[in-house]
């Protein structure tokens, strides 16, 4: 044991100059501050006499809150994580079209698009081809990651129309102590708008968008709150994009493959439907989304420029929630849900002969969750929860259409039980200890227990320090366990991946309008599930073999002014290493910088939104380097020139920069060129 301690100590001290330095600063700062705050002094950034302010001015003062970090509403400052919140207002004024674009602008995040799906990376980790399994996405608390691939869908495949989002909470770090699997690197909690939101305008909202590449989107929403207390939100959207007419890929530049030009193969379309009914303590939410994308890249060795290549993803769920607060600050939330997921990929191959390979997955599950929150002895806020999921269908199937050859027809089912506990202990008014732990039991691989500890200390009203430690796991999914055929074999002995994170965060309110965040972290991933080739039979198989270590520093400054001026600037530096090879990970940018600004041009009526993103070089799978790049987006937004009307015009990639994202194992292309300058005009009208 002592030997282990020495080794751990050594690796800690050599790999964590950041945390040591930061903690020294923390100690010195605390020592200096001890005598300076006297009893009864008024807080520094609020004016001394608030009663002199008018109500309008009071309504403009900031108080930031977040729901997802502890599964109840709490102040961002007290959340046991480093949290960012993006509001509906920002979504409109920056012209965000998808959740992927929202994430692109979050500190420390980077998104890769391969003309099929969008993949999010955070804290330097975003391996090409990983289906976002290490980020948990929740919509109103409901898990979106499916039960076949565990994929977090973030592009046009995301099941909710971005216009219906009230806010997005990005909770960084491991949260398996509350949510179980997939809450590995971050949890993204999306909260939808309520029916009441729309009521002000008699309840109907219609929106239409026209954009480059023959893109159209229409949405019709209806919301109301009735006298009986019933609140309703119904919305349907339809999106269709022709995509780029011609996409050139040098790797296929030969007469036989149309000189590398994929014609009319970038089509993307979806339709979705959302309904939310809430009555007293009950809320019933139903969502269905179907998305189809043509694939122009000839991924997986398919025939280049063949119009049959496409993927379809359908995602739907029904979630019934009961939320009641009894007297004595005792709250119960019970949830019952049903989910389904359908995937179909059509891949034309020329083995020979030329045939269509059809790939399918069907997932269905139902589950319940019970959560009890109680405040004990005035200082302890206790959360106890239990969850059960019955994945009664986890089927995968694939075959060649003609001549018919069946490769895989796998039917599975599994169950998950979990119990979690969290205590938010207010040791003093300015010192909180947040401790949580969750026990998961999977019928597939067994057990996983994950703790999280956070010490949150506010020496002053404007300053908060958070010291965080947590572990998280990612359960191997049905695809990694059982997929076989066509050069792959299964591995039912897979274990979950584990991550252990240490983090130190400093949040500081500066003056009346600014908020700064500095965070330093270090994480270790082990048992990473990676695909390898078995030397015995040359087949591809998933094994628990990866070991990753990373550290990083993130800085952010956010400002909000009374007249509507809002801005954010962030910088993240990270270093990731594959412990097996000693090399930096692929697709891991060392630097990420972002700048956003919303400026009111005509008070409350006309705004300009500017975004600037910088991503540094990334190592590709072929060992080359993808260039660093700057992207600028500009949106002009107007509201209420005519009552109830919002019009916006956006230019994305304003300076027409040529930049590429990385291809993954399934692509011949090492780099995939992204879109140049493109436009969108959007009109929303409330009746």
């Amino acid at each position, binding site marked *: 044991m002592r030997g282990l301690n020495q080794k751990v*100590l050594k690796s800690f001290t050599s790999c964590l100059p950041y945390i040591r330095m930061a*903690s020294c600063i923390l100690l010195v700062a605390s020592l200096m501050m001890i005598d300076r705050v006297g009893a009864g002094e008024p807080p520094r950034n609020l004016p001394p006499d608030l009663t002199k302010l008018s109500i309008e001015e*009071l309504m403009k003062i900031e*108080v930031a809150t977040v729901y997802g970090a502890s599964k109840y509403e709490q*102040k961002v400052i007290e959340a046991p994580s480093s949290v960012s919140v993006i*509001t509906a207002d920002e979504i409109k004024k920056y012209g965000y079209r998808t959740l992927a674009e929202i994430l692109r602008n979050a500190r420390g995040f980077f998104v890769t698009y391969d003309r099929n799906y969008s993949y999010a990376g955070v804290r330097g980790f975003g391996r090409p081809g990983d289906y976002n399994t290490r980020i948990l996405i929740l919509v109103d608390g409901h898990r979106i990651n499916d039960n076949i691939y565990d994929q977090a869908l973030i592009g046009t495949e995301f099941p909710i129309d971005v216009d219906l989002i009230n806010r997005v909470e990005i909770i960084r770090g491991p949260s398996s102590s509350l949510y179980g699997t997939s809450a590995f690197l971050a949890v993204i909690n999306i909260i939808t708008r309520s029916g009441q939101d729309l009521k002000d305008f008699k309840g109907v909202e219609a929106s239409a968008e026209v954009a480059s590449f023959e893109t159209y989107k229409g949405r019709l929403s209806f919301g109301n709150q009735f006298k009986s207390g019933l609140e309703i939100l119904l919305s349907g959207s339809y999106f269709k994009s022709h995509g780029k007419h011609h996409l050139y890929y040098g790797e296929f530049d030969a007469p036989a493959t149309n000189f590398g030009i994929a014609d009319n193969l970038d089509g993307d379309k979806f339709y979705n439907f959302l309904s939310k009914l809430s009555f007293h303590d009950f809320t019933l939410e139903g969502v269905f989304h179907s998305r189809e994308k043509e694939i122009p890249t000839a991924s997986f060795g398919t025939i280049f420029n063949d119009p049959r290549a496409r993927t379809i993803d359908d995602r739907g769920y029904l979630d019934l929630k009961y939320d009641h*607060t009894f007297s004595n600050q005792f709250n119960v939330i019970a949830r019952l849900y049903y989910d389904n997921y359908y995937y179909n990929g059509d891949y034309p191959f020329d083995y020979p002969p030329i045939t269509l390979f059809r790939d399918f997955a069907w997932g269905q599950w139902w589950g319940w969750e019970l959560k009890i929150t109680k405040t004990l002895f005035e200082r302890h806020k206790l959360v106890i929860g239990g969850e059960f999921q019955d994945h009664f269908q986890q089927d995968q199937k694939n075959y060649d259409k003609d001549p018919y050859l069946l490769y895989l027809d796998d039917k599975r089912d599994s169950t998950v039980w979990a119990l979690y506990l969290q205590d938010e202990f207010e040791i003093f008014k300015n010192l909180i200890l947040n401790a949580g732990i969750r026990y998961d039991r999977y019928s597939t691989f067994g057990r996983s227990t994950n703790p999280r500890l956070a*010490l949150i200390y506010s020496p002053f009203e404007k300053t908060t320090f958070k010291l965080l430690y947590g572990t998280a796991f990612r359960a191997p999914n049905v695809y990694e366990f059982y997929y076989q055929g066509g050069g792959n074999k299964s591995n039912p002995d897979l274990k979950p991946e584990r991550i*252990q994170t240490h983090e130190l965060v400093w949040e500081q309110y500066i003056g009346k309008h600014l908020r700064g965040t500095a965070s330093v972290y270090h994480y270790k991933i082990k048992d990473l599930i990676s695909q390898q080739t078995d030397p015995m039979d040359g087949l591809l198989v998933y094994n628990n073999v990866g070991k990753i270590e990373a550290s990083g520093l993130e800085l952010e400054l956010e400002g909000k002014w009374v007249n509507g001026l809002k801005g954010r600037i962030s910088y993240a530096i990270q270093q990731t290493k594959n412990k097996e090879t000693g090399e930096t990970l692929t697709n891991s940018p060392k630097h990420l910088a972002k700048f956003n600004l919303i400026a009111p041009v005509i008070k409350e009526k006309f705004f300009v939104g500017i975004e600037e993103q910088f991503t540094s070089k990334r190592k590709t799978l072929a060992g080359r380097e993808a260039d660093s790049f700057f992207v600028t987006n500009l949106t002009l937004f107007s509201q209420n020139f005519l009552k109830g009307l919002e019009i916006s015009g956006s230019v994305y990639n304003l300076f027409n920069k040529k930049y590429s994202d990385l291809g993954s194992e399934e692509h011949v292309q090492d780099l995939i060129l992204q879109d140049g300058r493109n436009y969108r005009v959007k009109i929303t009208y409330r009746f």
Partner: protein
Amino acid sequence: MEKIIISYIPVSGLIAWLDMGVNTKLMPERLNKVFRLIVIFTIGIGLSSVSNASAESQRSREYLIKAAFLYNFAKFVEWPAEAFKDGLDTLYLGVLGVDPFGDALDSIKDKTVKGKKLVIKRFTKIDDLEKCHILFISASERGNLRNILQSLNNSSVLTVSEMEKFAQLGGIINLITIENNIHFEINPDAAERAKLKISSHLLKLAKIVTSGSQRE
């Protein structure tokens, strides 16, 4: 002094738990010494600075703002003449339930509103309730809300709270947070039943809410 001793119980429990690396499923690697040292140091510093200062957290910032709102509500609401029968120059503001304001109400205590002095009173139970012009009902009383509103039944009390659906259930003003700012909902029917006149200035800034269920 006792604060320091009391806080070391959970802290040492925490450290003992961290030390408990035996069950490898609970913690794959032992938490190392340096990190623990940092934790202890931070707690130590925190404790010593806390005994000197009365530092305020984000929570009190929010309640200072809400206290200012209550002061403003007093300015823009008119009570019927008989509400001041017993004490012409005093306006009573009561807090029912677990008081979330802490010191924040001191910022409006004894201030004058429309010639009347603002006096704060605190009640833990509805049975203890004395005459108030404004009654702030704490979120802790959520489970008892129906009883509380019924017992106030049309007396001229301006009921204010910060719990979900307060206004729909018959409360008069509900403080809500929208996108990091504090706003408020007003139920004008409830105000009318309490014979209170709310200035149009206040109504304009509020979100108007109708009662969810009509119960007479």
